[in-house]
């Protein structure tokens, strides 16, 4: 089944290439975007900066290991600020643990926390998963609205409506770059049809054979806050061992 799917997918890809994307439907485009962004494994060193409307800032530097061959796994280790260095966060599906070096203990965090924002940022766990591992195709139905130029790049504007009612958004607007198939911009709308968040990507690099945006910026229009994610190092190629997604590894310094 998987094979058939892969072959069909490849065919779609090729056909798209032949007609220069002219005949691509919204569904096709979204699949291509997901394929560009989804990875089975990924290692990143990134910086996260939070800004509030009143001018307050928070900086964090982390190392992140992601693997989604056997469910969604993530290990996150804090590097900066110094006071939290070595603090580790482990997520296996919906279970979450935290290791506090100053306490010397691993503690679980209630799964309900996953409904909230990711590390207090303007991105929710849902946003992170869609952008990082799960993609959008499974949860949204896409419709190609038009072609548009954004900052001198040719894009397709897609309108995404949720397949079922379990998502936080009523609608997404996604601008996909016509060459890289990366999202350049995503607008998020709430159930009242108001735009509540704005995602923008910058600084695109070809890494391990795929286009990657090295900087992302999410604006929360209601709270007037903003989160910037900067990737300092990223690799898709290195094999990540399954064993590092364990509480034992969580406690180890590295």
């Amino acid at each position: 089944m998987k094979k058939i799917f892969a072959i069909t997918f490849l065919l779609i890809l090729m056909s798209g290439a032949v007609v220069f994307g002219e005949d691509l439907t919204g569904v096709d485009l979204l699949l291509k975007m997901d394929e560009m962004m989804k990875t089975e494994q990924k290692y990143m060193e990134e910086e996260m900066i939070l800004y509030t409307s009143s001018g307050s800032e928070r900086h964090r530097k982390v190392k992140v290991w992601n693997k989604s061959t056997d469910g969604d796994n993530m290990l996150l280790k804090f590097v900066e600020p110094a006071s939290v260095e070595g603090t580790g966060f482990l997520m296996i599906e919906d279970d979450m643990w935290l290791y506090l070096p100053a306490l010397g203990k691993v503690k679980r965090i209630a799964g309900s926390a996953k409904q909230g924002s990711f590390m207090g940022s303007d991105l929710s766990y849902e946003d992170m998963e869609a952008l990082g591992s799960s993609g959008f195709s499974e949860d949204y139905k896409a419709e190609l609205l038009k072609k548009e130029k954004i900052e001198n790049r040719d894009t397709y504007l897609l309108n995404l409506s949720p397949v079922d009612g379990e998502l936080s958004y009523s609608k997404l607007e996604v601008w996909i770059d016509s060459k890289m198939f990366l999202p350049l911009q995503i607008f998020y709308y709430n159930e009242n049809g108001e735009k509540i968040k704005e995602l923008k990507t910058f600084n695109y690099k070809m890494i391990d054979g795929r286009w990657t945006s090295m900087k992302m910026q999410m604006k929360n229009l209601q709270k007037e806050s903003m989160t910037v994610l900067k990737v300092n190092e990223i690799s898709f190629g290195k094999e990540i061992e399954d064993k590092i997604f364990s509480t034992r590894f969580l406690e180890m310094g590295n």
Partner: protein
Amino acid sequence: MHRLARFTTRFPKIVLAVIIIITLIFGYFATKVKMTTDIKDFFPKDDPKVATYNQVEDIFGGAEYIMVAVTADDIFHYETLKKIDSLTEQFSELEGIASVKSLTSIDEIKGTEWGLEISSLISELPENEEELRPLKGKILGDEMYRGFIVSEDAKAALIILELDADVDSVLLAGKVSKLIEDNEGPENLYITGTPVLNNVLADSMKGDLKKLLPIVLLIIALILYLYFRSLKGVILPFTTVLISLIWTLGLMGILDKSISPLNAVMPIILVSLGNAYGIYLLNRYEEELKFGKSSKEAVIGSITTVGIAILMAGGTTVAGFASNVFSDITLMRDFGIFTSFGVAIALLITLTLFPAVLSLIKSNKKKGRIKNNYLGKITSMLANLAINKSKIIIIITLFLVILSLAGLPRLKTDSNFFNFFAEGSQAKIAYNLVKDKFTGSESIEIFIEGDVQDPELLKAMNNFQNDLKSTGLIGEPTSIVNIIERTNKAMHENQSGFEKIPDNRDLIAQYLLLIEMSDDSYLQNFVTLDYQKARIQALVKDTSSEGTASLLAAIERYEEENFAGIKIKSTDTGIIVLIDALADMIIKGQIKGLIFALITVFIIVFLLLHSLKGSILSVLLIALVSLINFGVMGWAGIALDIVTVLISSIGVGVGIDYSIHIYSRYLEEFKAGLSVREAIVKSIETTGKSIISNAAAVISGFIILVFSSFPPFKYFGILVSLIMFVAATGAMLFIPAMLLSLEKYNLKSIKKGEK
């Protein structure tokens, strides 16, 4: 004056047309005037206290709250808790509400056997008694919740709505009240908090104006009719008053100013005072008619004779109101500006519209109005008193002065809005309920700047919070300290010994990170992202001026004790801090304003009378009248608040008129060759009559305020009436008595000199 009279009588139609057009324009803008009850509007835009308040609001979200109390036999009942839950939901959905804290929405840090959870205090509503009992025990046993979100006797629960920073809180309070009405029963619901009180205040202010203004107009119409016995005598002064009111409100509309609790009395003031000028003019006009002059000649005659006096009397009134310009309170300054403007317009209309209209209507040579014998009897009695009992009058005055001086130390200032509500009113009941069953409905916010992850700083904050709580002036203070303590306990298997600040800075940072990962919104109310600013929040039990003053003193003392030697900066804010600052501004403004008013009035009187003695006597009388006003307030326990503070400016500006009239008549008669004694009797018997009728009209306007729903307005009405009475009586008794005594003294010294 003469030229003005000529012009208006020659082109009456032009004058009329111009006035009508201007009135229409102002009338259009008058409809745009809004109401404000926002305490921040009392302060100048750049006031540092308001800046701090706004800063805290910006950083941590609103510092303004709406409180909804739910009462039942026992709150811990499935149905009642469900009602609380449903209310919480409904409130959360309102736009402008930042957060809703209630039994069913409040989050708690739980240490579980496997880790940590931040979740609702009541995650699932237990349906049977058995499950409810331990929950009740747990919540009532926790000082974080008892007295804060549920009362000690479990008969009342509180829902606290925190408002967004830039929201129209009064409008929102209206919406919440509406929701409350829909959800009433079987539980009783009460709503309070500053925005709610302000909402009630704005509504009642409108209601009061609608109710009282027609009564004032009616009574004044009645007095005018009794005095003039003609329709003209009612309509003309009335038109003046209405036009001045429309122009004033129109100017407020153009300048985008709002009606506040402070200037809500302005229409009553303008109506009561504005018609007086017309009375003097009409009076003279009728006298002139009796001499057989034509209407036009009579108009010119009366304008040229009494015009100056009217202008001067109006001038002192304008100056009295203008004295409020010296207040630091923005709304008081506005009150001064607009009331002065209104009075000036009333003057202008009297001196232009009157002659224009009078010259248009044919004079119906009617017989003069019926002499009022009662007035004559009263004035001759007063004249008699002034002449024969001058010593007693002065002794009584001295006695009153001493009594008033003794009352001064008792005079209190109160800028508290809560006293605007009468006992037994819905607003007061709800306010008292929240005050008695819970810690209170107003908050004090202590804004901390420093390294909030530093154990030393956190421990100092903790000691400070404990010291402050031990005063009994506030409920349980909450801050980042409580969050860290609870987390520390949760991470140590809930051992109670660990409910404290750990010594390790890294551990604190990691705890905070843990909470960030779990539920960040929990922190944002108490600390900034960079952990450099925090706030301590507590509900205040006693929001009276004394209560606030002692709380602020305690805060200052404990800040000094606990924060010495630590890199920390703390600032207090909150609605009650603003209210407290307002009280200070009231006093300073009052003293400055009074001095200004007395000096200005002295100058005007001196210009008019050209008599140093007369000016000093008049101003002395009015200073004594102000003193008596404060004395009465002191003895009666009436506080100097944002409404009663206006009384002295009215007293000076209007009260002085009586002295001016008496003294100028006295001078006139004295110069005509009468003796001091004869001149006094003549002036009291003639001018005394118009003083009495004028004072009667003014007093009957103000006394209507007794029917207001607000205690300060009632006091305002009574006190203004009282000082008008004292000023009028003083002009007819004290000034003559002083004149006589001075004369005797002069005679004696002359005799001494001769010897």
